[in-house]
């Protein structure tokens, strides 16, 4: 590398004061470069490390259960105080068998419900905050949306199990369950409504938790949409709803998808609130939307204690395997979202363009 030459005086004693400056800059440059490289590889190393540890820990469980792990439903720790048996070379408790299908399905179901509920509410909230409400009202309301994003999930879970669940199962679910026709899809909204702990309550609580995540991002996105295209749509005789649907939302569509993936990531991985309102029932798929169930994340936290009592380590390995499945789901969801963003970005305006 060539360094800008510093004029040096004939006598080496008299040092050019600029020379030290150059040296200092070179040092800074190097630190900056090394720091930059570190920062670049850190996420990759971190992600790889987590996945490798999970895979290593899960390996015994994978050898025993194979791919059947994600298709079977039974969740039996076996007799942890009795004898052991050897399956595919792995020592496991007598009668132990694990299948993650119900919690895998539960994870996807609760997140899907959360997204279906949260996305329209979030966009509506963001739209109201940016386009509808006067400034003196939208500023404090926007602040509250952001505060809501910061409420610890255990508090929302507590509220869900103490207030929302009982209220829904007493005053809302019965009405829905008794009035919907016995046809496909809607059939799952009929039948016993339980006591408020279950699939739909979990989905709604999750939805509430991700609304602020999506809404605050979407509000910031809407604020970036330049006024000129919106005026153009109004001047063409479009209604406000049409302007939102055809101009404002498409303008930031890829950003909204990104925010949604962020929310979805939180819903997929949310642990404690779901553990509190899902009923935490292992090994069965909810018969209708009110049925008790559990998710992968909730299972890991609720079962870790008892898994530690399994002397063979098979139960812990199984939880690690469940964790690996969850991590893979998150990665797949992110990749899918990227594809969608790329497709949506095709018509998007260059940033800063009016």
């Amino acid at each position: 590398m060539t360094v800008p030459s510093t004029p040096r005086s004939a006598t080496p004693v008299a040092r050019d004061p600029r020379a030290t400056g150059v040296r200092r800059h070179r040092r800074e440059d190097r630190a900056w470069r090394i720091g930059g490289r570190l920062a670049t590889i850190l996420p990759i190393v971190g992600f790889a490390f987590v996945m490798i540890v999970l895979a290593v820990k899960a390996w015994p469980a994978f050898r025993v259960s194979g791919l059947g792990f994600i298709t079977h439903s039974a969740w039996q720790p076996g007799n942890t105080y009795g004898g052991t048996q050897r399956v595919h070379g792995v020592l496991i408790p007598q009668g132990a068998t694990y299948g993650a299908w119900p919690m895998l399905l539960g994870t996807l179901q609760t997140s899907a419900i959360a997204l279906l509920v949260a996305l329209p509410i979030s966009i509506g909230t963001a739209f109201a905050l940016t386009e509808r409400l006067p400034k003196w009202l939208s500023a404090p309301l926007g602040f509250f949306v952001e505060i809501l994003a910061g409420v610890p999930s255990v508090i929302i879970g507590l509220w869900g199990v103490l207030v929302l669940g009982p209220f829904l199962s007493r005053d809302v679910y019965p009405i829905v369950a008794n009035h919907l026709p016995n046809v496909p899809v809607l059939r799952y909204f009929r039948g016993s409504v339980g006591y408020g702990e279950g699939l739909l309550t979990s989905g709604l609580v999750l939805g509430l938790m991700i609304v602020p995540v999506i809404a605050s991002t979407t509000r910031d996105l809407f604020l970036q949409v330049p006024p000129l295209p919106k005026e153009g749509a109004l001047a063409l005789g479009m209604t406000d709803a049409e302007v939102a649907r055809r101009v404002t939302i498409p303008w930031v569509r890829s950003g909204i998808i990104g925010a949604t993936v962020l929310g979805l990531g939180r819903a997929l991985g949310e642990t404690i609130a779901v553990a509190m309102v899902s009923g935490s029932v292992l090994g069965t798929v909810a018969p209708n939307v009110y049925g008790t169930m559990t998710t992968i994340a909730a299972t890991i936290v609720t079962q870790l204690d008892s898994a530690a009592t399994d002397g063979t380590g098979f139960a812990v390995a199984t939880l690690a395997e469940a964790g690996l499945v969850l991590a893979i789901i998150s990665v797949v969801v992110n990749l899918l979202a990227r594809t969608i963003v790329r497709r949506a970005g095709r018509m998007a305006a260059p940033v800063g363009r009016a």
Partner: protein
Amino acid sequence: MDEVTRQKATPNEVDRALAHLDPDAGRPSNVVDVRSLSLQFGAKTVISDVTIPFERGTITALIGPTGSGKSTFLRTLNRMNDRVVGFRHEGEVLLDNESIWSSSQDLLSLRRRVGMLFQRPNPFPMSIKDNVVAGVKAHGIAKGRELDVVAETRLREVGLWNAVKDRLNDSPYRLSGGQQQLLCLARALAVGPEVLLLDEPTSALDPLSTEAVENLLRTLVPALTLIVVTHNLGQARRVSDRTMFFYEGRLVEHGPTPALFESPRDPDTARYVNGLMG
């Protein structure tokens, strides 16, 4: 085949036949009629007491220094100012003899009849074709295969068809600025407006694109009535039939474009059109 005997029509008959074909027959000759219009934002008066008719099928240029109120005036004609906080108006604006603010006036159809082109191209985030038919779809004027016809017709009308016919489903943001503005013009024309408001339509364009737009504007009359705000005095002279000079919220002088530029009556007008005030 039958022999058709053709008789020469007298000029009078031709006139009558043409008059019969004219869709604007029986309508007032002034498509827009502004009467004692004053506009205010809060306590600030932006336009005071303007009375001026706009004759159907003509191009009127609105000129004047920045802050003279001409853009506000223009944006009032399709009620784009209505939602601006503090906006108030006195007086009347009649469109075909009906007030644009009357309760029987539907805002959406008013804006369909009075279209607008902006300072800078503002295509929507959708394909080129969807841009052209966006308004048509919103107003339910055409649907399905008809939309393709509308898109082609309007793109041909603005001279953009050959440039974009192979990429109708592409993003409009890859077009040049001039092409984007022509696309916006096609979009505005697609809903079949009677009046087109142009707010400095070429201020963001290069000279060649400007010329293309100007030439196009001359082809739109007399089918449409055009009202153009421009800072470009040459443009006002080239395209407009009549010119209105705004200064400090007042309509100082108006008249046929050559007369206003060559023999202005008001000293302020004279200074402005001679480049001594800007």
